[in-house]
């Protein structure tokens, strides 16, 4: 309100009254009479002023100011109510805002590339082969065929992941990255922040000794010094010239954006030209190159798919691909593909917080209704004094919107706190975590949610302003009570949906972590030892290194066994091939058995606690080609043969590949995830076949982390340039493999717990209010001989009836809703009767607690006091 204008108005009206008084005196009235007559003639000064303000057109603003100030006064008078209301809302809004940040960052915000909607990935799949993979990258010859002929796209780029030991810059470290075609960065529309990108001529063997490094590596290892340009980096002992530094945050093809199909490339640090060798260009069976294309403007994904498909068909005629039927081409938009990875997970969380917010709203609406009942006297007086109903309604809505804005402000603060600790809570493998942050859109969302919730929960009490009950100054609020009861039923029902969902996820998680993994993770420490330096190019050197290392580690006190394998379980890496069983036909493509191949040292099974079920483990000196297979492999390759030791099979189907003789059978290992049914597994001695990247596994008699320093010292003693990477106790590896599920479960469980707490408060509020309203009735009943027990039952019955109604509705709603969780559940059905029953019981028990307190209070009523109670 403008104070000047207000003073002006006062003076103007005062002058009018004075002039009228003067005239009245002139007419012969006494001053006293003159004043009364003037005042009578003028009518209500307050009303006139109000009308003047309204005529000035700023009335709504003035009134808003008044309403706001009035609201603040009422809040100050009811601090308890205000605190509970604001806190409930802050809980709901902070959770919603935090999850919306994820929705925004992961699903709504465009990928950080030029025209990301024109980027597509190209892959293949084969539904007939039991690959256990949804999509495979493509082969080099096919890629080349497309790049030469495709017209629907501006460019096609490709990459394949790599990892190097970086030496000569402090301690040796393992860095990951990709070999990329020279056009990749241009295709994405990303330029280095320093230096230049790859030139086309650098994309050939011999001229490819150049690398681009990540901003993070530049800062961490080279102090962000621009003198890095032109410097030589030793990668696996080979010098590469640094030609540029990529901008901060650029992570392609990182885990989130690049969608490599080879397992996670967490945080690429280095890029080098793809520079395919002549042999690589001929590999028809090597599905290793992830292709990404930029479509020409106006070209749809369908047209691109048709063209790529037609070209592929033309190309594969008479090749390996043609023989093995069932190949299909997959072309999809990059952003769709990135988003599809977490769309359901994020939307499920968003649904959960939306429920939580609704429950908070119901709760606050309930509080407001209870307060409205207490304020009905005030409202009746204000109506009688001439306040319009619309005006009162607006006043009430102002109050509720103010409450929700306060809740929203607190909620945003909480949410930014949550987002601050999010990265440390979320599993490290969560893709695109950096995209989850507050921005203008998130803040706008929080504001909109606050205002909408304010209107939503303010509506019920505000509508009461239109009920005649107020005008009559009625003390009775039957309708209001029914509204409140309905709100409690809704609240209980919504809570049950959340609790059921959370219980399903919890049970699923418990089932999952209790699933036998096939190995014993306790007291095992693992680390990756990449033997990729030129000195280890000869595979015998690698065998010698491992043999010496394992012997010296086993000699350490406290070590029970030490072994090595090329790919540890649950690390996302794999090596899969088709196999041929001796004497078995191989004509039906869909029946070709697939197996995971691993190379191990003799003591690996003992170190990891994998039980040998038949035959023997591998020895240090295996002369003949031998292998150990898993039980699933034994069952699948030799159905009906109780002990297939001595049987033979081979990797692939080439005639010149030697057969491997089975010497032992071991337990299945859940290598791809605790929730993934194991494929057939084959273990070969590392002395026959090995991989430069071996992981050491050491079983100790006590806490394995205490031995890490000693093991590192042994490694340094043998070769100071071999980095010990990813040092982890096996328990941690297992925990990491389920961390995504655990995170999701914890979030939903927290939301459900909050919902339960809100429901508890809601039920308590309604029941204690209704018991207080019935004090008179209760007093009468007791005076007429009712026992405290009867009163207790009376109040409990009312509350439990509401809870039961809520549980019945909620169970139905949960039954309808939980199928969306199906993709996240392991070993438990979305309609698991036990889970539904337990959830309902938890809620009923909570309701019982919430009702018991007011019931006991009512039962302790003194009839004399109660009868006098008004």
């Amino acid at each position, binding site marked *: 309100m403008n104070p000047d204008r207000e003073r*002006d*108005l006062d*003076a*103007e*009206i005062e*002058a*009018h009254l*004075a*002039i*009228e008084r*003067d005239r009245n005196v002139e007419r012969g009235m006494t001053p006293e009479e003159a004043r009364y007559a003037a005042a009578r*003639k*003028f*009518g*209500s*000064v307050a*009303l*006139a002023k109000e*009308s*003047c303000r*309204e*005529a*000035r*057109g700023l009335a709504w603003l003035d009134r808003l100011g008044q309403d706001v100030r009035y609201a603040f006064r009422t809040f100050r008078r009811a601090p308890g109510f205000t605190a509970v209301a604001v806190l409930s809302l802050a809980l709901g809004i902070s959770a919603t805002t935090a999850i919306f940040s994820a929705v925004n960052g992961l699903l709504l915000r465009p990928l950080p590339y030029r025209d990301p909607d024109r980027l597509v990935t190209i892959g293949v799949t084969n539904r007939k082969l039991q690959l256990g993979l949804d999509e495979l990258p493509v082969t080099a010859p096919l890629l080349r065929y497309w790049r030469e002929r495709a017209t629907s796209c501006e460019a096609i780029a490709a990459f394949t992941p790599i990892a190097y030991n970086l030496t000569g810059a402090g301690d040796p470290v393992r860095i990951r990255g990709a070999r990329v075609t020279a056009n990749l960065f241009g295709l994405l529309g990303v330029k280095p922040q320093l230096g230049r990108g790859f030139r086309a001529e650098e994309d050939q063997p011999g001229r490819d000794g150049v690398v681009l490094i990540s901003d993070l590596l530049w800062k961490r290892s080279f102090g962000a010094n621009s003198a890095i340009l032109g410097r030589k980096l030793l990668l696996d002992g080979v010098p590469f010239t640094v030609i540029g530094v990529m901008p901060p945050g650029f992570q392609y093809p990182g885990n989130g954006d690049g969608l490599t199909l080879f397992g996670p490339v967490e945080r690429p640090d280095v890029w080098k030209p793809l520079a395919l060798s002549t042999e690589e260009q001929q590999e028809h069976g090597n599905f290793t190159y992830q292709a990404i294309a930029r479509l020409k403007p106006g070209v749809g994904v369908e047209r691109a798919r048709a063209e790529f498909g037609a070209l592929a068909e033309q190309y594969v005629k008479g090749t390996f691909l043609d023989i093995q039927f069932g190949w299909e081409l997959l072309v999809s938009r990059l952003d769709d593909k990135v988003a599809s990875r977490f769309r359901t997970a994020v939307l499920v969380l968003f649904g959960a917080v939306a429920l939580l917010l609704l429950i908070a709203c119901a709760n606050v609406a309930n509080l407001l209704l209870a307060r409205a009942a207490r304020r009905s006297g005030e409202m009746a007086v204000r109506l009688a004094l001439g306040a319009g109903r619309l005006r009162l309604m607006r006043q009430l809505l102002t109050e509720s919107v103010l409450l929700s804005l306060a809740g929203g402000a607190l909620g945003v603060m909480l949410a930014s706190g949550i987002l601050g600790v999010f990265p440390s809570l979320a599993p490290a493998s969560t893709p695109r975590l950096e995209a989850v942050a507050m921005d203008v859109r998130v803040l706008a969302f929080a504001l909109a949610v606050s205002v909408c919730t304010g209107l939503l929960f303010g509506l019920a009490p505000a509508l009461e302003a239109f009920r005649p009950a107020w005008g009559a100054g009625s003390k009775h609020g039957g309708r209001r009570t029914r509204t409140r009861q309905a709100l409690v039923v809704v609240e209980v029902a919504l809570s049950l949906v959340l609790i059921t969902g959370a219980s399903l996820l919890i049970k699923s998680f418990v089932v999952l972590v209790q699933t036998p993994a096939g190995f014993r993770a306790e007291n095992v420490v693992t680390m990756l030892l990449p033997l990729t330096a030129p000195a280890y190019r000869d595979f015998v050197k690698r065998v010698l290194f491992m043999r010496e290392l394992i012997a010296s580690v086993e000699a350490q006190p406290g070590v029970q066994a030490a072994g090595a394998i090329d790919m540890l379980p649950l690390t996302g890496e794999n090596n899969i091939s088709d196999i041929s069983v001796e004497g078995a036909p191989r004509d039906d493509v869909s029946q070709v058995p697939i197996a995971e191949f691993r190379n191990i040292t003799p003591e690996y099974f003992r170190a990891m606690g994998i039980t040998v079920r038949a035959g023997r483990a591998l020895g240090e000196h295996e002369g003949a080609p031998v292998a150990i297979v898993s039980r699933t492999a034994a069952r699948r390759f030799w159905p009906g043969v109780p002990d297939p030791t001595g049987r033979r099979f081979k990797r692939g189907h080439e005639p010149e590949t030697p057969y491997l003789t089975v010497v032992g059978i071991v337990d299945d290992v859940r290598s791809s995830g605790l929730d993934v049914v194991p494929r057939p597994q084959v273990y070969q001695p590392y002395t026959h076949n090995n991989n430069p990247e071996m992981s050491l596994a050491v079983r100790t008699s006590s806490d394995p982390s205490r031995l890490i320093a000693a093991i590192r010292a042994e490694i340094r003693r043998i070769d100071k340039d071999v980095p010990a990477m990813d040092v982890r106790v096996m328990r941690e590896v297992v925990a990491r493999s389920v961390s995504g599920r655990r995170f999701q479960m914890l979030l939903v469980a927290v939301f459900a717990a909050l919902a339960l707490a809100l429901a508890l408060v809601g039920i308590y509020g309604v029941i204690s209010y209704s018991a207080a309203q019935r004090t008179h009735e209760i007093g009468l009943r007791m005076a007429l001989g009712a026992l405290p027990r009867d009163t207790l039952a009376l109040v409990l019955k009312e509350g439990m009836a509401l809870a039961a109604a809520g549980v019945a509705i909620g169970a139905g709603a949960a039954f309808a809703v939980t199928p969306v969780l199906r993709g996240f559940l392991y070993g438990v059905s979305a309609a698991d009767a036990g889970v539904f029953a337990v959830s309902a019981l938890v809620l009923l028990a909570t309701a019982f607690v919430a009702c018991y307190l007011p019931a006991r209070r009512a039962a302790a009523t003194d009839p004399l006091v109660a009868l006098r109670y008004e």
Partner: protein
Amino acid sequence: MSDERLEFLQGTLDMLVLRTLLFGPLHGHAIATSIEQTSRDVLQVDHGSLYPALHRLERQKLIASGWGVSDNNRRAKFYRLTAEGRKRLNAESSKWAQFVEAVARIMRPAREED
């Protein structure tokens, strides 16, 4: 007097205020008195509703205001007609004349029966 008092038709007060200000600036009380006297006390101005009308007209820039001194030496707010107000008054006057004529034509038969 009060028996013969006429209720103002919606908007009529605005027109009367403009008409009253045609001959020079006046303060609120004088406007009310002038309307009452000119109509020979048939029209009674509700003083309370006069000011909202004045403020409304001022917001529409049909009149302007300033502080001055009244006949009996009281500081009072004076209102004067603006050029726009004059234009509006002309328009309203002819509309009013048409309205009165139309009402009169409808009411005539009743009067003939008297």
